[in-house]
């Protein structure tokens, strides 16, 4: 959708910058797109897109988020955590729907509470709150008008975003009759209207059928490729893994970790990795005359020679010709280097190698159980 | 339900235990039988003229059979609906008003019969106008106030209680039905092995409980009280009146529950429901009164006023003479009954239509 993503067009971006140098000449004309007034100076470009500095928020006596510090610059970041961990609160703080009680949220250095910052952020809320009598098209267009676009511009943008989220041919029906997937798409469409740099998506994949989910995942990846920054919360960790490996894990109002899943996993020193290794028991001879060695030998060798290994368990395998080991090891990187070396030097035929507890699911489980 | 002795295992409390009981089959015939028997009883007690004892027996049987409702498949729905309304403080405030009206009549009757016993035969001076027999005075007073156990007394009682019934139903409607649609509880009920009829009957019974709690039951109490104070023969001689009270209650119950359920399904929320209810009963009433009383239109215009229609039929049930019925003139009672029946059928078909449209599997 090139006509929508006009700020991806370098000429357009330059115009913004040019205007910034003469702020007094900022256009106020009726037909002008409001977000063209956006002050995106070069210094501001150097600032992180999103910066939360020790943000806390209470609802009366109830703590929403507690001393959250988060910095995002680009790409997709997953926001995961239990219900009530403060994900939605954090998202609303970022989108400027809520004002932090302590700390500061800024978008390119602008306070997120300000109208200026809101023009940079698109928000797709988790709750369904539509005017059910409107058609999808009317709803998105009304949102476009609320963004301050002129009638013709609103129409153009509405058409573009609806096409983009794959709702172009279904948007004239009333929202009342929409499925969950269509509702999510309409919410996404209105978040994309003003072509924001940061998209905050609260549970955008929940309740959608697998076909629609695959389409949305592809769309998110495409948006990220075009240089948008996405913050996506989801309970469906398998889906999130398809989107990104960079996650922020929230628990009890705090951010427990922000990093790639693999690195967070590494830092969980209390929980050694569990690696499943399947070896062929008695394969044929190797080219150099040696024959494959038994999986018990590998178990012994791992225990004796690799200091990172803290336990090896020989378990039954479903196939009589396959030996299966469950290895518990710390420091994944060094362990795997050693394992590779052993496999090559000592003639083990590994046919399956899998870390069982490095998924986001497992990491989240370990982190929250602590 | 005999459970075999099993050895205690670790964590056995958290173990899933199968249930060995039997599930009751529902039989539609129970409802049909109930309705049939009650109709026969009611017809018999309304048509018998001289056999007072038989009539009284029929009445007692008719009332007692209502106890069977508790055994019906729809009763759990009714019970939960009642529980919801009984939890509201506002309900109790309004119900207190209804009870006050009842107490007024209740103690009014006591006062009158007490006054009668006190004065005896001595004459008293009445404000310098002359002397009068106090019994005569009290009787006069009593007849004027209609505290005399006559049809008019019950007419007045129903009349006053009618207002509280309206207010309570307006409040209860959204709790009874509107919330079920708004919060998706309907999917809960209808995904269970009950039919949509059971649901409607259950909710209708709940409305019936409110209506009868305010009107019929206190009225019957007043009837019993008067008979005890006056003369035991009253029960036999005036048993026709008791049938009238029950009939009046029945008319109110059927009409109001159907109209209420239909409006509550339609508007769902409390405030709009009260507004619709007020329009339906207050505005239509004012309009028809203005048309017939002031502008001298045809009395058929009164058919606009559902409340008037129920009252009118109720008065006829109580056996009040046409000259005593107010407001007057009224259309022919057949016409009124036809309109009321039509409205009930309309409400019922709307209800069925709406409940059939509920998506249980989304």
């Amino acid at each position: 959708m090139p006509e929508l993503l006009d700020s991806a067009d370098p000429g357009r971006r330059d115009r913004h910058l040019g205007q910034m140098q003469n702020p007094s000449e900022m256009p106020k004309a009726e037909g002008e797109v409001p977000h063209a007034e956006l002050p995106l100076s070069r210094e501001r470009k150097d600032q992180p897109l999103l910066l939360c500095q020790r943000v806390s928020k209470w609802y009366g006596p109830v703590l929403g988020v507690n001393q959250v510090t988060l910095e995002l610059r680009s790409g997709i970041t997953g926001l995961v955590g239990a219900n009530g961990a403060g994900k939605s609160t954090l998202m609303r703080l970022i989108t400027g729907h809520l004002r932090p009680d302590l700390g500061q949220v800024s978008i390119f250095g602008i306070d997120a509470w300000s109208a200026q910052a809101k023009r940079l952020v698109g928000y797709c809320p988790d709750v369904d709150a539509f005017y059910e009598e409107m058609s999808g098209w009317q709803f998105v267009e009304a949102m476009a008008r609320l963004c301050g676009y002129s009638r013709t511009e609103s129409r153009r943008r509405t058409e573009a975003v609806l096409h983009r989220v794959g709702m172009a041919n279904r948007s004239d029906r009333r929202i009342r009759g929409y499925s969950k997937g269509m509702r999510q798409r309409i919410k996404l469409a209105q978040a994309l209207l003003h072509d924001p740099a940061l998209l905050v998506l609260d549970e955008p994949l929940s309740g959608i059928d697998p076909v629609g989910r695959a389409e949305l995942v592809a769309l998110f990846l495409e948006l990220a490729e075009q240089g948008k920054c996405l913050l996506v919360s989801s309970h469906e960790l398998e889906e999130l893994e398809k989107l990104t490996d960079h996650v922020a894990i929230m628990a009890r109002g705090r951010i427990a970790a922000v990093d790639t899943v693999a690195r967070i996993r590494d830092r969980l020193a209390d929980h050694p990795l569990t690696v499943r290794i399947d070896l062929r028991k008695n394969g044929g001879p190797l080219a150099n005359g040696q024959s494959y060695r038994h999986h018990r030998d590998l178990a012994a060798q791992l225990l004796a020679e690799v200091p990172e290994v803290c336990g090896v368990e020989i378990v039954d395998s479903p196939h009589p010709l396959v030996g299966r080991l469950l290895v518990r090891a710390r420091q994944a990187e060094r362990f795997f280097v050693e394992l590779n070396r052993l496999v090559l030097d000592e003639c083990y035929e590994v046919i399956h190698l899998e870390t069982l507890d490095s998924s986001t699911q497992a990491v989240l489980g370990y982190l929250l159980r602590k | 339900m005999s459970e075999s002795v099993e050895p205690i295992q670790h964590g056995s409390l958290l173990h899933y235990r199968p249930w060995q009981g039997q599930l009751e089959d529902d039989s539609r015939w129970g409802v049909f039988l109930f309705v049939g028997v009650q109709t026969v009883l009611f017809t018999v007690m309304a048509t018998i003229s001289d056999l007072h004892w038989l009539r009284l027996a029929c009445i007692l049987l008719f009332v007692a059979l209502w106890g069977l409702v508790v055994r019906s498949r729809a009763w759990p729905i009714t019970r939960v609906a009642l529980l919801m309304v009984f939890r509201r403080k506002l309900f109790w405030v309004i119900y207190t008003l209804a009870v006050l009206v009842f107490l007024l009549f209740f103690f009014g009757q006591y006062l009158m019969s007490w006054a009668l016993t006190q004065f005896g035969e001595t004459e008293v001076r009445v404000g310098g106008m002359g002397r009068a027999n106090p019994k005569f005075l009290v009787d006069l007073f009593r007849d004027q106030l209609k505290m005399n156990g006559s049809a008019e007394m019950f007419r007045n009682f129903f009349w006053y209680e009618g207002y509280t019934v309206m207010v309570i139903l307006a409040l209860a409607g959204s709790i009874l039905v509107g919330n079920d649609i708004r919060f998706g509880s309907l999917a809960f009920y209808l995904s269970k092995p009950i039919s949509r009829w059971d649901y409607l009957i259950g909710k209708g019974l709940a409305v019936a409980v409110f209506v009868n709690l305010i009107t019929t039951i206190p009225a019957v109490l007043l009837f019993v009280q008067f008979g005890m104070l006056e003369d035991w023969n009253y029960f036999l001689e005036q048993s026709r009146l008791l049938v009238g009270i029950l009939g009046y209650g029945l008319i109110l119950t059927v009409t109001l529950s159907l109209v209420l359920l239909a409006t509550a399904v339609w508007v769902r929320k409390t405030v709009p429901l009260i507004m619709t209810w007020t329009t339906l009963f207050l505005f239509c009433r004012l309009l028809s009164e203005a048309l017939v009383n002031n502008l001298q239109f045809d009395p058929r215009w009164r058919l606009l006023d559902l409340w008037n229609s129920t009252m009118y039929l109720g008065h006829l049930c109580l056996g009040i003479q046409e000259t005593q019925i107010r407001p007057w003139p009224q259309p022919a009672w057949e016409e009124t009954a036809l309109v009321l029946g039509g409205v009930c059928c309309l409400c019922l078909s709307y209800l069925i239509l709406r409940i059939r449209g509920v998506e249980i599997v989304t």
Partner: protein
Amino acid sequence: MLANSTSEVLIELERVSRWYGTFQALDEVSLRIAPGRVGLLGPNGAGKSTLLKILLGLLPPSAGSGRVLGLELGRAGTNLRRAIGYMPEAESLIPGLSGADYVGLAGELYGMPRRQAMRRAHEVLTYLELQEARYRKLEEYSTGMKQRIKLAAALVHDPPVLLLDEPTSGLDPAGRDAMLELLRVLGREHGKSLILCTHLLGDVERVCETVLILHRGRVLRQGSVAELCASRQDRFRLQVAGDSSAFGEELRQEGAILIQNNGKGRLRVAVPEGWNPRTFFVLASNHGVTITGLERDDETLEELFHRVLREADTPVPRVLETRHV
């Protein structure tokens, strides 16, 4: 009363169709489902909810016949619902009631005597670990508790079959795990048959023995996951640490086809016949890359699902598709 639950067939449909006006939601569906844990999959508009309604006796089939636990469809409306414990997707709670009252009411509506229903409600609530919350009002419940109380209401009369519509929707990962574990135990250890309707393929993989894929009112596939998913001897998924581009290049030179390289060390390769997995380690060490994961790239349930839908939508000759099988 309930039909004999030990019968061989749980659900049997013979050419069941359902029209809404001119729209055909189910198209001559014929099915035999044995007792067990079944996942019912399908995109929106596949006819899943119509099938559920027919199974629950809420809708009669327009044509065809069928039986659930020996009960004839279309005739035994309420009896069907008594034999099945249905957990709806919608938040079908009654605000103002306590958890125990709610489950007890469900029991009564299923036809249990009131006292038995209350006793059984407490028992089921204890089993589902809601004993602390049972006197609290339903509107104060968290999402996880709401899902569990809905399950309790479906389980209260101890039905042989549970029909679960999106039981994990809205649950956080921990809650979802707990729910799936509960369902698995109910199925495996307590002999309940489950029909799990969901959009989350992971749920089906973790709970169900067999899957049923529905699309445009037809059954596209039915069988166990292992049976249905193509087993691909010649494809591997690799996870490597280090720079994977040179490694990938070398793989290509050795005759392997690089199907996917996500740039973050995750590769999928198709290898020529007679390939020894050991070659991966050899090639990796040539480029200073460490292999941290090596798995056969068998078709996942998700891939199967998408493939089956694609095949149904664009009828291609099946010969092309058997390449990987």
